[in-house]
């Protein structure tokens, strides 16, 4: 028996919401890491954002465990956001 019902809905939610959070956080973090100005950092983030989003979505469906997906994506999003904020100063 595969994944179904609420657990499947939770997995889809993790992919869409968690993936979105991670994509935004990583895009922001990457912009701060690179030695470029503020506008350039923002543009680079936008160019790559959807790649991170898609990768995150596929990762969630490869893992197939809603709890794990939510946990990892939340933690990673927070870590990248905080690191980005730290780098921005």
């Amino acid at each position, binding site marked *: *028996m*595969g*994944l*179904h*019902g609420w657990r*499947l809905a939770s*997995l889809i939610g993790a992919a869409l919401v968690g993936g*979105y959070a991670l*994509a*935004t956080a990583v*895009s*922001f973090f990457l*912009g701060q890491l690179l030695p*470029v*100005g*503020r*506008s*350039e*950092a*923002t*543009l*680079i*983030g*936008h*160019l790559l*954002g*959807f790649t991170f*989003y*898609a990768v995150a*979505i*596929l990762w969630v*469906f*490869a893992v*197939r465990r809603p709890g794990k997906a939510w946990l990892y994506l939340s933690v990673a999003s927070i870590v990248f*956001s905080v690191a*980005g*904020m730290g780098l*921005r100063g």
Partner: protein
Amino acid sequence: MAQHTTVDDLPKGGFRQCMAWVHTWAGLSFGWLLFFMFVTGTAGYFDTEIDRWMQPELPPAPIGHNVHESASVLLNKAREEAPGAEQWLFTLPVDRNEPYAQLFWRGANTEAGASAERGERLVDLNTGETLQARETGGGQKLYQMHWLLHYTSRAYTDWIVATATLFMFVALITGVIIHRKIFKDFFTFRPRKGQRSWLDAHNVLSVTTLPFQLMITYSGLIFLGFSYMPLIVAANYGADGAGRTEFYGEVFSTPGLTEPAEKSASLIPLTTLIDQAESRWGEGRIRRIDVRHPGDANARIVVSENIDQTIASGAGRLVFDGVSGELLHNAPSASSPAKGVRDAFLGLHEGLFAPPVVRWLYFISGLLGTGMVGTGLILWAVKRRQNAERKRGSAPLGVVLVEKLNVGTVVGLPVGVAAYFWANRLLPVDLATRASWEAHAMFLTWLVMLVHAAIRPRQRAWTEQLVVAALAFSALPILNALTTDRHLVQSLTTGDWVFAGFDLTVLAIGVPLGATAWRMHRAQRKRRIAEESQPSQTQRANLSLGET
């Protein structure tokens, strides 16, 4: 257990099965919207040609002109129509992207004699008169539907369209992952084998145009990025509106523009500025002349280069002081590497640079993409009906629903597009809201086709709608001949390629639709005969639409 009657379980199997599940559901959930986006977006590669077909009163476009004379005609027109304006924008008829000379203005003073506070006019360069033509949404409204949709607020549209595009991107990646034999599928098509044929067709269409599909999807996402991921801007510039404005200012604003000094000064003649620009870019390569605060001491004139020699969506701009004529800035669009990459993606998406052969390739790639989405939707239903009928003799409600949406959209939407063109010729020319009614005609027709699909038997619905679609497209040249004097014979003999091209293209769409309807009808009749003689074969024959 009970709540998952329509969505399959995510399989327990390997990585590839999971990716297949994602591919199936990402594709299906936004499939009909993506089909709509592909149809209207593909038409957009001939947006200005469709504009011109929809305004048959306009003379053939005067591409090729003397820039000095054109600029002076437009300048006089602006002084007459829009005194005291904040901005006059002159567009020169350089190529198919801008077939007619155009004046746009905003912030004009109606008390000083301006005809409106804001407006635009197509200008006849020989007489200086406004070119009059029927009101229409034209190719512009049609192509804008692929990202503005219609009847929706912009606040939601960007999110809906971006989500659909994201799902498309995910479907493309998972499609590549679940593919075993990418090279072999280039050459594999087994017709008349039901589900297998639909899968082959879906594969061939997707594999051959994969680079185009990836480009168009990812660049589409980049277009919508600022709306869809606003937090990236917010994190860098602050979450309030001011931060956002600051970011846009840094990246997109033209340098050197200022507030008016509220002190009058006469505008410098355009001649020397035009000469300076042409000496940099070459003759006839000025696309736009943008005059800010004409008649003010702080007037600025921005001269922009044509975009036909670069894939990137932007081109060079020269910013002059509008009183002294001093060159203030030479501002390339790609002000930084990231902006350059962004411009290249957006430029590839829009294809404004494309000469005729490349433009046709864009159009055909778009049609194949439309086919990819359409075959994907049909494949979903065919496969499930086969399995369900094998197991319990009938298809579940979800499958029936998808089948009906498929007929009503895959065939019904193109009929709606044809109705958009029919309305352009049949609505009264002086109807005030005729541009809106053209669009209403399109969506009402689509609605009628969906209702038809809902109430007719499945296979009848396909043939009947295909017949309607075939007639709707094939008869457009006749309608054009009856309602204008620019009929196909006339346009072919005089070399009016916009009109000839439109008429021939709709024929090239209509005739195969008719042929498909005919083949389907014949196959259905054969099946009925087989049914009467051998009832046992009925079920198997009914299983698949693909055999037709």
